């Protein structure tokens, strides 16, 4: 059997490894469009603060690892895919054929539609190449504008500030990380950032970017003009699936529609990771989660089904995130915004930047937001995904949400 994995991120690599485990004799090729060995974008913030070097971002550390698994890694971008001839044409003009193909091409940043954004002072923060440009572009005291206080924007704040940037963050939402944190959480995070010397502008958009000698001027929706030596745009991403247009593979909102076997509308074509339009555990609805644990779940399930059709079903992944913004750690799980008719409970210690809010549906935990908490937060997943009925522990949690670990032990182990 000949397998092709398009994409060299976590989903691609885990899928290739799983394929190898299940089919020792198969031919396996990973096609990736960046020159470096397969690496983790998740590690880039830690590269930017010099915790690790570039090798520290590599998904697998041992020299010759992929060769030792008899996995070919080929550099090139998939330009088109033809299901009839079961082939992919790459940017190098190569044609790669397959019996089964996994599309794990992830996503890429989109630049907001702003006049003048096509300027060499503007960069995204997505690839190792971007990271090198950012590291080179920041000097102590240099004014830097970050467009977007979402997950990526926030996770690189520490790197930007510790490199000495004089930072302004511009976020169109009414709070920081609006897609992961509730009002209280997002607002507290903003206060934290302001206290650390970062200028945060929420409910603000960028109108234009104008050249200004060696720098640029960033003009905001409320008429401010902020000078910047470097502008980092972290304002959303979109799936890399355009190359499938015309192939017969059904796309949903730019992502690849998959069934419970991670199989696309064309039988021998599977999808995994940030490009896959797949099932959410909490809502039962389909969409793109774009998180590491989900990408890896997808990859393992897809690979199983590529080797043995319909052997493993995806039950839906729990959406979850953890974010470290200059030392303040926030997390979100499942239906953190709550459900109609559900109850919620919260505990706030504003002075110490600590917060937890739990969301219930009946006596089941369905979502959570936390701030400043690092111990045992994984049980929130355990409680949500196990769909455990909390019984009397629900009331106990309502009066003290910090007892989640005790609640978990009580309902799972009869403690």
């Amino acid at each position, binding site marked *: 059997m000949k397998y092709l994995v398009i994409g060299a991120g*976590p989903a691609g690599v*885990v899928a290739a490894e799983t394929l190898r485990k299940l089919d020792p004799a198969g031919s396996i090729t990973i096609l990736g469009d960046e020159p470096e060995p397969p690496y*983790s974008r*998740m*590690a880039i*913030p*830690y590269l930017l603060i010099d*915790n*690790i070097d570039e090798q*520290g*971002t*590599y*998904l*697998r*550390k041992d020299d010759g690892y992929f060769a030792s698994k008899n996995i070919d890694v080929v550099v090139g971008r998939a330009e088109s895919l033809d299901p009839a001839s079961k082939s992919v044409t790459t940017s190098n003009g190569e044609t790669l054929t397959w019996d089964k193909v996994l599309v794990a091409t992830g996503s890429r940043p989109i630049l907001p539609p702003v006049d003048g954004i096509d300027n060499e002072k503007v960069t995204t923060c997505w690839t190792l190449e971007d990271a090198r440009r950012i590291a080179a572009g920041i000097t102590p005291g240099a004014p830097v504008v970050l467009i977007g206080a979402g997950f990526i924007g926030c996770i690189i704040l520490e790197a930007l500030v510790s490199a000495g940037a004089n930072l302004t963050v511009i976020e169109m939402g009414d709070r920081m990380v609006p897609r992961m944190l509730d009002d209280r959480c997002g607002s507290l995070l903003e206060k934290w950032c302001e206290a650390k010397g970062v200028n945060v502008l929420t409910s603000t958009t960028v109108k234009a970017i104008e050249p200004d000698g060696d720098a640029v001027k960033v003009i905001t929706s409320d008429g401010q003009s902020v000078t910047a030596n470097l502008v980092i745009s972290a304002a959303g991403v979109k799936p890399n699936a355009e190359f499938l247009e015309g192939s017969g593979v059904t796309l949903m909102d730019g992502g690849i529609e998959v069934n419970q076997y991670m199989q696309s509308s064309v039988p021998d074509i599977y999808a995994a990771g940030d490009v896959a339009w797949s099932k959410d*555990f909490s809502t039962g609805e389909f969409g793109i989660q774009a998180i*590491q*644990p989900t990408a*890896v*779940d997808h990859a*393992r*399930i897809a690979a*199983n089904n590529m080797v043995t059709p*319909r*052997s*493993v*079903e*995806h*039950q*839906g*992944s*729990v959406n*979850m*995130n*953890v974010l*470290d913004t200059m030392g303040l*750690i926030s*997390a979100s*799980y499942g239906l953190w915004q709550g459900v109609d008719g559900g109850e919620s409970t919260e505990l706030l210690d504003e002075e110490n930047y600590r917060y937890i809010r739990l969301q219930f549906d009946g006596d089941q935990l369905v979502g959570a937001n936390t701030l400043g908490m*690092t*111990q*045992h*937060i*994984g*049980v*929130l*997943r*355990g409680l949500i*995904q*196990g769909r455990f009925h909390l019984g009397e522990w629900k009331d106990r949690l309502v009066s003290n949400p910090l007892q989640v*670990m*005790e609640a*978990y*032990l*009580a309902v*799972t*182990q009869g*403690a």
Partner: protein
Amino acid sequence: MLRSLSIDPDKCTGCLQCEMACSLENEGIFNPARSRIKVFTFHEEGRFVPYTCTQCDEAWCMHACPVDAIKMNFQTGALEVNEKTCVGCKVCTIACPFGTINYNRVSGKVIKCDLCGGDPECAKACPTQAITYVDSDATGLEKMRAWAGKTDNAQHAAG
């Protein structure tokens, strides 16, 4: 023969010797807050429940790690964090449904039980044998893994 920690909450008196021993062995200080095993107190029921990592086979922490920092020690069966490789991203801490891998602000890395390399201090320190280190078959490990199964995102076809 693989051994694992067996925990019998009925025998626990809440003395916290296990937490002290763990902290000393792994952190060099007596500080229960830095222990990888934790005793939970149920005031209303008057019970104490020691709790730590079950070293699951297809470990969520291991699979969630974006930099391959968590690996199984095949001698002990423990999942171990390679401190040099861990970048401190904390994805494992939200992925582990048992809440037994946690971020350590002091080191900027995550910590979890590694069975002390095959000679767990908590079991040695426990005066009532609430924590013992025994043949894996006897620990009810399968029962614990059954709970774990409830959290799996994948369902394997029967047969």
